[in-house]
């Protein structure tokens, strides 16, 4: 394939970011306003702003929040359901829960309303044998009815289809001839989980966003083609890999969490380039914070995400924990007199007080500004900010008087509370899963991440922080460099002892063949194709599974046994003997490795020959209860291997990094700032 630039595009709530990595190693970036009505427009104008000649582009990869937002805002397609007789209400009844542990007022609307859920005679037993054959004429009648009711997409969801998909397949065949748009989802194709609600929701989510995603990528692809781009657009999936736009639509659900996944993938690549084995990714933007954990350069992938109340999305996704704490999160006092921060956000309008657009409620951004960590004159897209003193007064009036604190101390308290919530999110993905934060490096990005990272690391006893060269563009970078990825799951659900090595290897070999074919269909140059294998296992009698990585297809019954015993002891600190082990599923991830990204291109020129040459000013900044005069460095000018100590601020176009007193910083050859955190 000819050399050409690779492009990553990330659409955030406020800005659409673009990163162009030229074959020559040069970097170009662009930031244009997001166009929420038709996001494709924003992408096209970002490409224009970046001066990209589309004829010379090798690939365009794109992270999208289109599907997530469609579900959350319920701007979804009209979907019909055909299901097993007696079970059309499974999707409405759920698992018998309520939104919160306390309080009995709440509501839930299924993605498919009841009048669009139809039943047909058919029934499989749990062992996959047929109890009632599929009534094909009933299937045809149901399809006719759903067409007449104006459905655009169709879900076929039968009990025990994970064990025997024959009826689902046949019904889908019948539908294919009668459903011209082709938006047909059979439950077993999306998830092979043996829980009818969870599998059914996954299928409904897929169908509900499929037409929307199809139209969106269609518009974008044809817009690009009209401008001379002849290749396939790549779309980022929640599993952290990308896939050709033409292929993604079939499994539209895989684009849920596409946005956060790109950041984690970029962080993992940066960690690999820097030689870090274990990182915690910390992506703090305007409204939310996403944290993830990467070991051995590979992000953890989970199949247990819940998008919102009663909306499990059990397909492989980069394991990211999100909380409502971002720069725009609002600080408030609860009825017990305790200071709280978020999850409500001031958003882009009116935004923080500091934006001067009519915001009156204190936010994290305002607190950072009062403490001297942000410069009001350098806020992106802000024209006439109020003064630091005016904001401090507002903080004192709104919160400080109740707490008995002045404006500065109130700002400091907001930061501590916000940091504590973010620390809680990091504990949930590290400590709560048996990891010790002391073994990790905190990789901080997003527009606001570098403001808080060093303090957070100290709170969590994380010994090191890495702030990449372009914190505010890391998500777009993640799209640009993402590998291709396809996941395959085969459910076996049988006692391990009843299986033999030949069977296990045959399953994995089949998955490999399917993986190679899928990557070939993506039609993008890859350097190599790799496979990762894993087994979902449990003790006989358990319903939850433990996923164990397998080194190769040579895995046999004995080695699976041993690997499970070790993983179980690590997680639960107990050893169980004499209880049989079940193999629930074998999984393969097929990864099309793309050329390593030229990360050095991000580093900036390091134009100053000495540290002092990068010093632009000093300013009082509040640390641990007092003001300290802190030097301010221009990030792009910092020379390679420059070393300095906090207190200090490091400024750049897309972020500000805060270095707490007593912590030593080095700028490495890739342009990263590496902070050794004093205990």
């Amino acid at each position, binding site marked *: 394939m000819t050399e050409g630039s690779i492009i990553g595009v990330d659409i955030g709530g406020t800005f659409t970011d673009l990163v162009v990595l030229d074959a020559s190693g040069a970097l170009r970036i662009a930031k244009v306003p997001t166009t929420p009505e038709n996001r494709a427009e924003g992408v096209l104008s970002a490409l224009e702003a970046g001066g990209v000649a589309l004829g010379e582009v090798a690939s365009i990869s794109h992270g999208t929040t289109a599907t997530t937002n469609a579900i959350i805002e319920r701007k979804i397609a009209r979907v019909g359901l055909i299901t097993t007789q007696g079970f059309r209400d499974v999707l409405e009844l*759920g698992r*018998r829960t309520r939104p919160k542990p306390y309080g*009995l007022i709440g509501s839930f609307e299924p993605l498919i309303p009841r009048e669009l859920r139809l039943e047909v005679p058919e029934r499989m037993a*749990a062992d996959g044998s047929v109890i009632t054959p599929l009534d094909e004429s009933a299937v045809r009648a149901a399809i006719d009815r759903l067409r007449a009711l104006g459905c655009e997409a169709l879900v076929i969801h039968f*009990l025990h289809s994970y064990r025997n998909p024959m009826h689902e397949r046949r019904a889908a065949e019948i539908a294919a001839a009668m459903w011209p748009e082709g938006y047909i989802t059979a439950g077993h194709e999306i998830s092979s989980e*043996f829980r009818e609600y969870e599998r059914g929701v996954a299928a409904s989510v897929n169908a509900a966003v499929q037409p929307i995603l199809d139209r969106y990528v269609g518009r974008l692809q044809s817009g690009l083609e009209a401008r001379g781009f002849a290749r396939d657009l790549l779309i980022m999936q929640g599993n952290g890999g990308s896939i050709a736009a033409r292929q993604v639509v079939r499994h539209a659900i895989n684009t849920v969490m596409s946005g956060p996944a790109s950041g984690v993938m970029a962080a993992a690549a940066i960690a690999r380039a820097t030689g870090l084995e274990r990182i915690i990714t910390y992506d703090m933007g305007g409204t939310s914070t996403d944290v993830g954990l990467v070991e051995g350069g590979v992000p953890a992938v989970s199949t247990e995400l819940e998008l919102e109340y009663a909306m499990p999305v059990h397909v492989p996704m980069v394991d990211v924990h999100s909380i409502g704490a971002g720069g725009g999160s609002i600080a408030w006092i609860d009825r017990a007199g305790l200071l709280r921060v978020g999850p409500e956000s001031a958003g882009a309008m009116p935004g923080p007080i500091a934006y001067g657009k009519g915001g009156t409620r204190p936010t994290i951004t305002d607190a950072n500004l009062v403490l001297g960590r942000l410069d009001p004159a350098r806020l992106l897209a802000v024209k006439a900010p109020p003064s630091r003193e005016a904001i401090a007064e507002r903080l004192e009036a709104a919160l400080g008087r109740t707490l008995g604190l002045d404006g500065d101390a109130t700002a400091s308290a907001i930061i501590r509370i916000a940091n504590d919530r973010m620390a809680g999110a990091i504990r949930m993905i590290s400590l709560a899963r048996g990891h010790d934060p002391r073994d990790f490096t905190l990789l901080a990005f997003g527009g606001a991440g570098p403001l808080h990272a060093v303090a957070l690391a100290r709170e969590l006893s994380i010994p090191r922080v890495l702030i990449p060269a372009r914190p505010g563009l890391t998500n777009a970078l993640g799209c640009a460099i993402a590998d291709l990825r396809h996941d395959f799951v085969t459910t076996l659900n049988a006692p391990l002892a009843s299986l033999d090595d030949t069977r296990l290897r045959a399953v994995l070999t089949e998955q490999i063949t399917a993986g190679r074919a899928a990557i070939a269909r993506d039609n993008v140059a890859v350097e190599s194709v790799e496979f990762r294998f894993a087994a979902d296992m449990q003790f006989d009698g358990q319903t939850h599974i433990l996923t164990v990585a397998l080194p190769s297809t040579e895995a046999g019954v004995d080695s699976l046994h041993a690997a499970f015993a070790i993983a179980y002891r690590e997680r639960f600190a107990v050893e169980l003997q004499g209880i049989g082990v079940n193999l629930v599923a074998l999984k393969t991830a097929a990864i099309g490795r793309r050329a390593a990204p030229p990360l050095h291109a991000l580093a900036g020129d390091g134009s100053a020959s000495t540290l002092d040459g990068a010093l632009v000013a000093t300013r009082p900044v509040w640390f641990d209860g007092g003001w300290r005069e802190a030097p301010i460095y221009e990030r792009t000018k910092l020379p390679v291997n420059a070393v300095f100590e906090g207190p200090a601020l490091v400024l750049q176009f897309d972020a500000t990094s805060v270095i707490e007193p007593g912590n030593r910083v080095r700028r490495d050859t890739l342009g990263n700032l590496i902070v050794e955190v004093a205990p």
Partner: protein
Amino acid sequence: MSELDPVTLAVIESGLIQVCNEMDLAFVRAAFSPVISETLDRSDGIYAAGDGALIAQGELGLPIFVGTMQDSTAAVIARAKEIREGDIFIVNDPYMGGTHLMDVRFVMPYFHGGKLFAWLANTGHWPDIGGMVPGGFSANATEVEQEGLRLPPVKLFKAGVLDEEILAIILSNIRIAGQRIGDIQAQAAALHVGARRLGALIGRYGAATVEAAIAELRRRAARQMRACITTIPDGIYRGRAIVDSDGVVNEPLVIEMTITKRDGDLYFDMAGTSPPCQGPMNSVIATTRSSIYLAIKHVFPEVPINAGTFEPLHIKDPVGTFLYAEYPRPVSGCAAEVSQRIAEAVFDALALAIPERLFAAPAGTSGNLALGGHDPKRNRSYVMYVISGGGYGGSMSLDGLSNGCSTIGISKTTPIEVFEQRYPVLFEEYALREGSCGTGRQRGGFGVRYRLRLREGSARASMVMDHGRVGPNGAAGGATGAVTTIQIEQRGEVYRPAHLSKDQGIELEAGDAITVETPGGGGFGDPFARDPALIEQDIRRGYYTPADAAERFGVVLAEDRVDVVGSALLRRNGRATG
């Protein structure tokens, strides 16, 4: 550091809750019984060293255990001798701060610097604890010995080592004992996970600071609860709830709840409530108290939970009633059913005082159905639990949720596919129960209808449900929801239990079936004031019939659309005559 700033306080508060959340999570992931791993019938918390008062509880735990674990921890404290690091007490005695026998508590001392700092405790619902019926939900036991093995606080682990002799006694007295060791290890592992996290918290902030924070959080929770109570006008409010029967004598049991609000406090008096009953619908005092606590917490969910939350609530011991069970009264129905009736009596009273915060009664039954049998194909015995949800009550702003979980729990149902994989049963239907809502301006949510058929072998079924006699109450003019119905198909004969919602010893052969319909929630406000557009939508969805709409909501349809004039006339005339 002795001075406690609000920031440190908030950090320690969330730190304590995280300790509990992590215990909750570890317990579920490692457990074997679906009743814990899928339905989440468990709870974990931290309790005070001296008196067992609640310090923090996991956000994922069962609400009913909030109050009862304080009492069972206190019972351990009263009996414990020579407490050492690594000891874990086991206790399920209902009369010592318990619920029913299946709820087994583990209580572990936590030491800091050689001194007892707090107790970590959890409760897990065991799938069997011996007794006369598989699963423990006897519908007609008359003494606690029939209900299962009763354990006073004894050390199951001594200095970290499992006592094989006590274990052997336990395993010899319960059904399907084979897998219990895995659950026991999971329950203990959760406490160790908690100890590790609590140690880290104390290591970070210092024992004195954490202790000071615990005391301050307790004061603040009490203050916040009083602030909420102050919004209720001073006065005396009366509510009532009815239990179908005790399972032995087929007569209703009545709960009379009188709530007096004075200043920032609430006083609960249950005078007039039915006397102790012969069957297993008695409630031990720990459960009675806990039911009132969680009812109030449902009304004011924003108040955090610790011992201070309950300080403004004063409960007069209902001595001489079935809500104050003493040995050897049977109690298997108290945790799952009577507790919910107590909560409903509280809701019923407060709906008169602050309707804007209340809701009509929820389905209020856990729908416990246990099937103990033998699977000839796999040659193994099993105990299978089915729980079911029902409609929640309407409120001032919203219709009730359909198939909500029990008032006292947050447990999920086990998936049908999991049931059918494990047990020789076939579900023929699992559906929204049409027409079951209590009507109102905001109607109740819908109950569920399911039918399950035994495919192989034979089994014995027992069930303890409620609301078979009277449906969940409406509020502010709304109507009651539909009642529980049970239908048993035995060798072609169909019958309904004499006690409507309770039965046991039902012998099932392959081909026999049980059909259960669970209650809909009560309605809120005048049904004739319901927006006709919503009624049109309800009918389009098949939630109830056009005939229902005319009769119960005063709305008529013509060609699937609301007939505006016809409806207005019907509503006016309906009101004039009705």
